């Protein structure tokens, strides 16, 4: 692959980009300036044309989402930037906010112009205190520098932008859970329809976009939809993409590639497997994504290819596991997570995630029975599609893939009445 010049991470390692002046030196706010000279609809068309799909997990067309917002300036409209990054394995948005806050502010401002929103809330997870502080400082700079406020870059367009801190709840990353939380309530997802584009925050039409999605927008404005479309696998999978790689690799981190880079290239790019041990499995898109086996090493990491392989690109959080990893134990940990984070509103998810955790723990500790795999699948079938939001569906993905891809390992736990993987001490004492 030709050397790829970073787009989203071009300011990482340039601490001066934290200041308005430093950000502008590298072409910052040129995208916003350009957008303000265009008709809002033309901005939406350009983003639509670029093929930009949501980077938060669902992969929905950003431009299309914007186009659902009713036209006209008579009613208030909102942009809520989803910075509630809580999908296990995901840490790319934290990097974008901590190293290049103005890039996000610029993307948000362009979106607000395109949909005529006068207020933007950046909903950031409560644990990201450092990123919140950095954003607050950057927002202050942006107000003082005339980027935000009564007249955005002298255009007469009025825009206010605020950081809103969450308080620790994975479900608030679900868009309607986030709106409830923003409104000061328990973050329990809403019934859809109505969709947020019609009834969103405070009853008004609202766009909700992920941090990385919005960070792409200034570049689409400056360099054009055609440039963006030329990056990636095909016209449905376009643009630069951040991959958050963790687990058993030599150099975990956030890596930027054209979307559709193969997992193999990515693995080589981060120094290969930890201590050269063999690859056993990997999760391509965060805790919600079904686990893939090592034989998928050449998979193209884009939305459609990963979906075709029975998993999902999700938030592109890639968790890598070597041959010493107990898959039952790994999935058991994810089940514990989903049980903890289920908001409790829908019975299939609330009860089902609890049973998944209990059963997987039982198998992990050698107390499973031969029927357990079938019971697990049956619980999954009762959760899937039977709750208001995607959390239930997310919770069953890893479990189903465990049964499908690692049945032998489950059997071994049951046969030996113990975990076949000695609980290795990670640190030499």
């Amino acid at each position, binding site marked *: 692959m030709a050397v790829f010049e970073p787009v989203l991470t071009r300011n990482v390692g340039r601490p001066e980009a934290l200041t308005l002046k430093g950000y502008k030196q590298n072409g910052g706010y040129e995208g916003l300036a350009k957008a303000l000279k265009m008709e809002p609809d033309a901005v939406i068309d350009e983003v639509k044309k670029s093929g930009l799909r949501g980077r938060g997990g669902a992969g929905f067309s950003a431009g299309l989402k914007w186009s659902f917002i009713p036209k006209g300036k008579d009613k208030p409209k909102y942009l809520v930037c989803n910075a509630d990054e809580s999908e296990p394995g995901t840490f790319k948005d934290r990097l974008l906010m901590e190293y290049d806050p103005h890039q996000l502010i610029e993307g948000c401002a362009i979106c607000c112009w395109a949909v005529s929103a006068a207020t933007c809330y950046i909903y950031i997870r409560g644990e990201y205190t450092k990123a919140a502080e950095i954003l607050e400082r950057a927002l202050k700079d942006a107000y003082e520098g005339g980027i935000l406020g009564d007249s955005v870059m002298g255009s007469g367009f009025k825009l206010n932008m605020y950081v809103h801190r969450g308080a620790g709840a994975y479900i608030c990353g679900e868009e309607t859970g986030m709106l409830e939380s923003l409104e000061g309530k328990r*973050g329990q997802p809403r019934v859809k329809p109505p969709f947020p584009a019609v009834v969103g925050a405070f009853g008004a039409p609202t766009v909700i976009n992920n941090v990385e999605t919005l960070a792409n927008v200034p570049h689409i404005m400056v360099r054009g939809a055609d440039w963006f479309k030329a990056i990636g696998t095909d016209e449905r999978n376009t643009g630069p993409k951040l991959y958050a790689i963790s687990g058993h690799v030599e150099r975990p981190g956030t890596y930027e590639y054209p979307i559709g880079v193969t997992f193999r290239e990515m693995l080589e790019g981060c120094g290969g497997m930890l201590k050269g041990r063999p690859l056993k499995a990997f999760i391509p898109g965060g*805790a919600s994504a079904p686990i893939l086996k090592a034989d998928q090493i050449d998979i193209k990491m884009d939305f459609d290819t990963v979906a075709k392989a029975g998993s999902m690109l999700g938030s592109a959080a890639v968790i890598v596991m070597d041959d010493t990893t107990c898959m039952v134990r790994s999935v058991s940990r994810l089940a514990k997570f989903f049980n903890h984070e289920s908001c409790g509103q829908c019975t299939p998810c609330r009860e089902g995630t609890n049973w998944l955790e209990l059963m997987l723990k039982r198998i992990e500790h050698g107390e499973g029975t031969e029927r357990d795999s079938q019971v697990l699948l049956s619980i999954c079938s009762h959760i899937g599609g039977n709750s208001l939001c995607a959390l239930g569906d997310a919770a069953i993905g890893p479990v189903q893939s465990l049964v499908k891809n690692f049945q032998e390992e489950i059997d071994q736990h049951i046969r030996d009445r113990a975990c076949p993987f000695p609980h290795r001490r990670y640190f030499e004492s």
Partner: protein
Amino acid sequence: MSVHEPASMKPSGPPQHGGGFSQSALDEIAELRKRYPTAEALTLPALHIAQREWGGWLPDEAIAAVAAELDLPVAKVYGVVTFYDLYHQKPVGRHRIRVCTNLSCQLRGSEEIMETLQQELGVGEDEITPDGRCSYVHFECLGSCDTAPMMMVDDDYHENLTPNRVRQIVKGLK
């Protein structure tokens, strides 16, 4: 006090804060009020401020103060408090340690980090050391998987931990 809660959640000590919010906290809330079309939207921000004011947790008094300030039913604010992991309904140590134990950290030794904390602090999870200095809990993914294992001490991330590093950090907490 109209909040009903199980006896085990009753504050164990005397209120750490007499009366309601301090003036500076009230000013802070008034300033934030301008950002939102409804007062209810201030529930999360006001609870963050209250938790800071009341020494790191939210006794009934603090929940009632938020409800009164935002003109909301106490039950509504109480419901919000119980929903979110960052609000505490019982006292915590002066330093609150959160250890990520989700998959990426589990793959890189987070359990040994939990064990080290237990050995160093001599108390179980979510208990407070006798000197009131620390309490620790396991936590869901904190978005620092590339520097696993990791833990949060108050607002600070401590990354690429080893048991030795954890011992040093804990010793440095006053």
